[in-house]
């Protein structure tokens, strides 16, 4: 089961930091996300893109997990050499996380 099957995500950028907001389609799946989608697992899954630390905030009031990923945008939108300078595609990359696999 891919994360994409049960959750949606939006990426935002601030300087060289990417924010990834993750929400289950069904509120009752929030606990599953809290359990499975840890900061370490996100960091490992996005290792090709995120150089710095990953912080996770839990917002049960919104059934949301917020990941703040440092050094994720090749220096930031103005001087990045990436095609997707804002890192918009990181939201979809996170959703390709396979929840059945334990190797992240």
């Amino acid at each position: 089961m891919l994360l994409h099957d049960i959750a949606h995500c939006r990426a935002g950028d601030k300087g060289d930091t990417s924010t990834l907001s993750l929400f289950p389609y069904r509120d009752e799946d929030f606990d599953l996300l809290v359990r499975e989608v840890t900061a370490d697992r996100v960091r490992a899954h996005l290792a090709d893109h995120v150089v710095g630390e990953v912080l996770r905030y839990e917002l049960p009031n919104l059934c949301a997990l917020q990941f703040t990923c440092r050094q994720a945008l090749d220096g930031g939108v103005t001087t990045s050499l990436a095609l997707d300078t804002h890192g918009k595609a990181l939201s979809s990359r996170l959703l390709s996380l396979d929840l059945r696999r334990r190797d992240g």
Partner: protein
Amino acid sequence: MRIGSGAGFAGDRIEPAVDLAARAELDDLVLECLAERTIALGQQRKLRDSALGYDPRLRARFERLLPAAREHGVRIVTNMGAANPLAAGILTRDLLAELGLRGKIAVVTGDDVLDRLDPRIPALEDGIPLADHGAVVSANAYLGAEALLPALDTGADVVLTGRVADPSLFVAPLAHRLGWELDDLSRIAAGTLVGHLLECAGQVTGGYFADPGVKDVPGLAELGFPFAEVAADGTATIGKLADTGGVVSTATVREQLLYEVTDPTGYRTPDVVLDFRGVRAEQAGADRVRISGAAGRARPEELKASVGYRAGYRAECGISYAGPNAARRAQLAADVVTTRLRGTGLRIRADVLGAFGDSGEPADECRLRVAAMAPDPEAADVVCHEVEALYTNGPAGGGGVRADVREVIGIVSALIPRSDVETRVTVLEVDGAAA
């Protein structure tokens, strides 16, 4: 009161804004058109021509928008002044006259702090002095709602600003009409939350949301922009015009709520430090979502400033490969071109894009993309030349070379004491006869 959002970035569409102005019974329509780097690009244009530097689409937008806004008594608040708000004000005044309309324009200046920001202070991002990043060309402080209130007090029909924190563009008219004091933390937090939800326009009505078969958005081609009905206590309902495309749901609202928020326990704006931990979003009808529960702590003592510097020149080039073995030929081209450029010492990146399909099989067509940062246009051209040379000096079947070199204005941030920032309001008027 009812406040709408008519643009969420400099490249936004104008039709939904005109529709809102004409039919949504708005009090205010806010157009947010400055991204982090947009004002530095404006400064670049202003350096070339001192009469420019405002949003390049200002005239095109206002030609469509001002007649509807003036007819329906909708006040416009926008940061389309960008790097040159006064020039934007003059253009707007002349345009009003040209259109045979009356109106008062209030221009807010003072965000440009280039002459008072010490280039030796460290950047927030990396602790390295601002000037060590490259020649500093611009510095603009993020103004808060307090800078806009005197402009609103003039009774202006159009308020033009340069750099203002995005939510503050909404907080100011909300506070002005609802009689909020700027030190009323819970109301200013609520207003900031409304502003944060509306500032990206279509992103809360289903733009940037659709994922076919999973997150379907009806009528995306006719996407409508949002408005908020805000009560005096700050609770609000986000909605859109019923016969427009898009969707307002708890899902679209939640995605926008946390957009670009690096710390949901303390989102810093010039007006308040917003805490999202008690925020709730509930469906209150078709395309209506009620939001509540914003909490705030006292605003920061210092303002953030965006500092633009000359970062060099970016070369961006590509070549395509198709058919059997396309991905391996593209990868060989990447290896060849990076080997040939090894001696340049430039920061270079080579990606093979689209090499594999969804199920992992090699794609029928893929593209090598090479990007580099160079100190001058000549060094950047060396990169483009090597990619172009792949035509006859690289793998089989490469085609469609495109190459582009452009100057890059980098952005870093610094803090500036509020007392170092002086804002001012200039009023321009068209009384109808003097046109």
